[in-house]
């Protein structure tokens, strides 16, 4: 068992870290205060990310990506995750892996331009009445002749305001199952500007300011059958093949921000003097630091192990769920304690801590709530026993 990084992996960490610290950190305050990523800044940073080969590095070499193995990819995500979300996600894009399901002309129209940074995807699953219960979705895409007719509403759709097309999941039919009727889901590629498809601003919220969620409305929106991603009624199969890894992405970005919060807390513990000594010398602070470091290490090992298994082809849903659950709950704890160590100063917007603390909250909800992750883990424990 080797826990060391290869030379390539170490270099990837350094290259990503250098970019994040030099190019993204300087703009964090602006984006946070205005909750807006200026289009010219967006363009400039995106071009720099493309030039540095960081853009779409998650994609395989054969299609124009950097071909990072899963462990290297997670290390890269961790470094990116240290920066403000609106900056790293919009400027250093990682096109959804699901685009690898593109076939024929779809590759030219969606996959390759996304990797080159010419087009941007967003993913639409969630609906006002279909959150954790994804299959309860009401948006329909009914095949009529050679066209799908789409109707319904999606919400909480991240960065749809920056996207050129949406990877949409919609109910395309029903089938009988032992537990009653079950919706069949199909994945579709729908371009912005398609008649009958409208994107509206979403809700203001507590986390990731400037990284917006949107509402998508479909009213008799018609797209040709050729826009189907994967097979008819097999949308979840496409999603399951390609999307499970996004939970590791969430875990990795949490590791990055937790490390940043811990670094700030460590520094403050030696710089801040109260009652005539560094506050880090008080057990009340030092034990917090020890616990934060411990939790971070545990979450990191769990995430890297899941990534390694992904590379070996042995990763299970439960592995992904454990990494996501641990890393997101760890971030909540580390961010909160880092803020506590800073006292009143921790609440001030002069430091990135209060932002990290607020941003941490969404991580236990999106890409599967903590409860859904626990369900996945417990199911994998009991099913083999007939549970």
């Amino acid at each position, binding site marked *: 068992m080797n826990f060391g990084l290869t*030379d*390539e992996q*170490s*270099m*990837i960490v*350094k*290259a*990503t870290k*250098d*970019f994040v610290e030099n190019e993204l950190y300087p703009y964090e305050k602006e984006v946070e205060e205005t909750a807006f990523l200026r289009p010219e800044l967006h363009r400039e940073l995106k071009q720099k990310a493309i*030039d*540095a*080969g*960081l853009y779409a*590095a998650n994609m395989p*070499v054969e299609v124009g*990506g*950097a*071909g*990072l193995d899963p462990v290297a990819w997670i290390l*890269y995500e961790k470094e990116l995750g240290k920066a403000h979300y609106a900056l790293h996600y919009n400027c250093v894009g990682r096109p959804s892996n699901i685009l690898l399901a593109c076939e024929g002309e779809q590759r030219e129209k969606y996959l390759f331009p996304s990797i080159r940074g010419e087009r941007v995807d967003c993913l639409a699953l969630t609906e006002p009445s279909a959150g954790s219960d994804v299959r309860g979705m009401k948006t329909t895409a009914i095949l009529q002749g050679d066209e799908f007719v789409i109707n319904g509403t999606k919400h909480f759709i991240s960065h749809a305001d920056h996207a050129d097309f949406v990877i949409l999941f919609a109910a395309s039919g029903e089938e009988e199952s032992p537990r009653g009727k079950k919706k069949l889901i199909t994945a579709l590629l729908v371009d912005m500007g398609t008649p009958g498809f409208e994107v509206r601003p979403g809700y203001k919220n507590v986390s990731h300011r400037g990284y917006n969620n949107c509402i998508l409305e479909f009213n008799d929106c018609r797209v040709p059958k050729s826009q189907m991603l994967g097979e008819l009624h097999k949308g979840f199969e496409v999603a399951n093949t390609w999307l499970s890894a996004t939970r590791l992405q969430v875990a990795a970005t949490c590791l990055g921000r937790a490390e940043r919060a811990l670094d700030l807390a460590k520094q403050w513990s030696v710089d801040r003097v109260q009652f005539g000594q560094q506050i880090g010398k008080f057990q009340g602070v030092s034990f917090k630091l020890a616990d934060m470091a411990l939790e971070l290490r545990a979450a990191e090992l769990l995430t890297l192990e899941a990534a390694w298994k992904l590379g070996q082809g042995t990763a299970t849903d439960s592995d992904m769920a454990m990494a996501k659950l641990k890393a997101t709950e760890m971030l909540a704890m580390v961010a909160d304690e880092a803020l506590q160590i800073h006292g009143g100063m921790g609440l001030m917007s002069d430091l990135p801590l209060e932002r990290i603390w607020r941003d941490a909250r969404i991580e236990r909800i999106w890409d599967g709530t903590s409860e859904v992750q626990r369900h996945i883990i417990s199911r994998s424990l009991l099913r083999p026993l007939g549970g």
Partner: protein
Amino acid sequence: MRKILVGIKRVVDYNVRIRVKPDNSGVVLDGVKMSVNPFDEIALEEALRIRERGEAEEIVAVSIGPDDAQQQLRTALAMGADRAILVKHDGMLEPLTVAKTLMAIVSREQPELVILGKQAIDDDNSQATQMLSALWDRPQVTCASKVEIKGNTLSVVREVDAGLETLEVDLPAVISADLRLNEPRYVKLPDIMKAKKKPLDVVEFASLNVATPGQLTATHYEPPKARAKGVMVKDVAELISALKNKGLV
């Protein structure tokens, strides 16, 4: 120009706080982050720019150090060097031995230009360029802040106490890179993956038959004394009087 040789030294990363071993026999290296000497990165960046202008064909990165120095050479290859040579040697080397070792590689490779960092941030010796120039019997320009190639001559601007000095030297020559020569590029992620396939030769130090003078040995390491606590002064007048009291002005 056919070939540029660039020196790459493995040093403790500039962000690391240096600690001396408890027995004063050296600095702590175990588990410490190591990087390419920043001035060597600048030297390599300059070589890459010369090649990109079509004024050189090949860039060879050379390092003298332990097996682990391959990591730094891989970084050089990822930045864009064509191939790398590691002269494998454990332990300390004095500047003259470094220069003689580089001379042995220069004899083998016959480059038209050697670019080194003006100094390494670990020992700060700043002697290899000058000594290599003497051994090679070719011109040197240290502390370069601008480099231009005009046919078979090299025009180099260097920062000196009086301002900027421009020197012209004939090639082959050796120069050392100063801080303001350029800003090294980001290593591109796909290039990191490709660097694995570029050639990296490992040469045993002993096989070069470099005479080691052994004039220098390090006997004792000690950290600088901790800075005494300062005092805050209200204004310049108070500062002047405080300095006068201490007999410093």
